[in-house]
């Protein structure tokens, strides 16, 4: 079939223009392609096209043991590997019926909140660049570097951690790690105020983001959105609150909600989430430093090579980009029969084709950036 017939339903008119935004474009955050039909600068039709970074990770799970599969999860959403590790471990633990010890649960919550901050800092920095402000980017990366240092002290890696294990975590916290982490949480909230002064409440920035890409509550639920994209519309849904895992029910935190579902709301939801995450980290450190906490970091009696019984399990968590789920099907073998990943960015991106229509080409960048996509997770 000729390409023209496949791509266009009706031929372009004379004053229309077809622009391929991506896969090589500075602000598609990887290799997303959006096929844009434009009249001047206004979008009349937008089609997101995914799959340029497909590596067949779901299929690869079927040839690996459960322990080996853990390494693959790092490569999904490479900006928040801890969340991927955690969701995978929860799914497999459900499959095997493993109880995770309390210390490991707190450490899991702690590192996933640290990773949430790191991931949102990248969002903050790159979103500034999308809108045209370069300075916040380097400030954000300076603070992210601190978290990278903390993770490096914890597990030796700075991006792909493989820190969780099925039944617990790989290592206990190093000796002076807690003090170092407290130094970070003491420092970080002050930086958030500076970010607000630098970017969030800048009149040009608000002017560009506050009235575009508006998603209503109903639309958000219809399209199955999750994460900050959903909460910006005002829907109060967070897996940490409504299906608590890793002792999130014992920790106190709020869920920041937006009002209008605009691009700025999505941005600011993330900024407020970072402050909440810093609070959660403090609580976790407090709980971990109690003397009566048993020192186990991995469940007793987890075999070296896992062989779950026939069955299936679904584990999901609130990752930094939304509701991340792993659906594991076991046929009683050493490796899963099927491992499906419910990737939040993949589902969130679908609504782009609706809200991009009528926007300007400059808004495309602003709206796309506010979804905080990571193609490694979307294309898998």
């Amino acid at each position, binding site marked *: 079939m000729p390409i023209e017939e496949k791509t266009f339903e009706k031929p372009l008119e004379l004053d229309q223009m077809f622009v391929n935004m991506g896969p090589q474009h*500075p602000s598609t955050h990887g290799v997303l392609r959006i096929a844009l039909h434009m009249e001047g*600068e206004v979008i009349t039709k937008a089609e997101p096209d995914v799959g340029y970074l497909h590596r067949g990770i779901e299929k690869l799970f079927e040839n690996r043991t459960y322990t080996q599969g853990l390494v693959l999860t790092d490569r999904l959403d490479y900006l928040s590997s801890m969340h991927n590790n955690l969701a995978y471990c929860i799914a497999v633990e459900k499959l095997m019926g493993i109880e995770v010890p309390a210390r490991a649960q707190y450490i899991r919550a702690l590192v996933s909140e640290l990773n949430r901050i790191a991931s949102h800092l990248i969002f903050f920095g790159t979103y500034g660049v999308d*809108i045209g402000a370069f*300075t916040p980017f*380097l400030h954000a990366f300076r603070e992210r570097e601190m978290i990278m240092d903390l993770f490096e002290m914890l597990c030796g890696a700075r991006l792909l951690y493989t820190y969780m294990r099925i039944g617990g975590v790989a290592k*206990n916290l190093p*000796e*002076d790690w807690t003090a170092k982490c407290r130094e970070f949480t003491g*420092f970080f909230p002050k930086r958030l105020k500076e970010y607000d002064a630098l970017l969030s409440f800048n009149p040009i920035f608000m002017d*560009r983001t506050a009235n575009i890409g508006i998603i209503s509550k109903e639309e958000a639920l219809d399209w199955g959105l999750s994460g900050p994209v959903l909460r910006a519309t005002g829907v109060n849904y967070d897996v940490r609150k409504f299906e608590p895992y890793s002792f999130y029910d014992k920790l106190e935190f709020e869920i920041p909600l937006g009002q209008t579902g605009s691009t700025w709301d999505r941005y600011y939801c993330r900024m407020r989430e970072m402050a909440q995450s810093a609070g959660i980290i403090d609580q976790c450190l407090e709980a971990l430093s109690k003397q009566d906490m048993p020192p186990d970091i991995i469940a007793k009696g987890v075999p070296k090579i896992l062989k779950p019984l026939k069955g299936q399990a679904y584990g999901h968590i609130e990752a930094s980009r939304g509701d991340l789920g792993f659906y594991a099907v076991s046929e009683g073998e050493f490796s899963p029969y099927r491992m499906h990943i419910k990737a939040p960015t993949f589902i969130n991106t679908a609504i782009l084709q609706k809200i991009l229509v009528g926007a300007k080409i400059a808004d495309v960048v602003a709206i796309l950036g506010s979804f905080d996509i990571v193609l490694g997770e979307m294309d898998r």
Partner: protein
Amino acid sequence: MKTGRLLTGTQRNWPTELWESPLSLPTYRRAFFLLIMLGLGGLASVWFIGEISDRINPLYDFAKTYLEGLGIPLFLIQLAWTIIKAGILLMVPVVNAICVVWWERKISAHMQSRLGPMYVGGWHGWLQTIADSIKLLLKEDITPNLADKKIHLLATAVALAPAIAAFAPVSFGKELVYADIDIGILYVFAVSGISVFGIIMAGWASANKYSMLGGLRAAAQMVSYEIPRTFSVVPVIMLCGTLNIAAIAEAQSGYLFGFLPRWFIFYPVVGQIAFIVFLIASVAETNRVPFDIPEAESELVAGFSTEYSGIKFSMFFLAEYSYVLISALLISAFFLGGGSPLLPSLSFIPSWAWFIGKALFIIFCFLWFRWTFPRFRVDRLMDFNWKFLFPLTLINILLAGIWSAEIKHMVK
């Protein structure tokens, strides 16, 4: 309690208390020092030309009499002298771009808590931009297959030539002014308006959709911002009664009440409005953040310059920085009193230093804006221009009329 092993060999130190108050950071202190040094560097380069011309004038007189004695016609001698002067002026944009690019990289670096170029040339990477320009000269020049090759090449010249020609009525030092014409302001605005054709041509000839969008955006933006920019100078012209740039700067010398300089920016209301509108419109004219929508790198890849590489790309770059310098020089002449000192007691500093020092301060403001603000959106940019700046300048002209008719003679 069993603890894990510390996996990194050394713990990193975070100088958090320094990050919280940037001014106490050693790098920021060094940045302040650097700023002064770099300012002097840029200043000296331009001043040098002006001072040389001063010294060379007697030499010219001597050469003229000598050559006339040999029987060479006068117009040939004058032509040769004009070409020499033009050659010197031709170097101004190049020297300026090299200085300002380096300055920009260092300033932006220190604003973002990094160091910027540090290696080339030894001292704070002072040779970096020269190395970069050599690299740009040696790079392969790529023309897209579908491009209109002649226009693609011509566009660079059309963008750069007016930028250099616009320097003609601007005087460096005492003697070196290429054309001391009475309608200097009109000339500068008229000539610098031509550059937009180069940008449109670049956008059209590149056969790239992003380039074309960038070219069209540039056309819309630069033509619109020309209007408030010109209108904001009208009060200056009304109050000084001349279109000659040097004469306007001269009219602002002297002090009110013995300490307040008669700079136009200190005229109540009228001066401030005109200054702010002119500054904003100048930033927009030079296509810099927050008005850099023609080349908005996150939206249009690189806008009109997407398909340019090597020396052709750097011609656009050169034009941009030339306009930055021109705008800064014009602002310091129109609003900041040209070469007149801030306080009577500071008059021991020569006037050229004041003039160029003020211009460098304005250039610093341009860089400051660039590394602080996000970018406007196209339609908001137009709204801002037509619905805010343009009416404001009209009101300002009215105010200036009232001032010159009613109040001006009272102050004198």
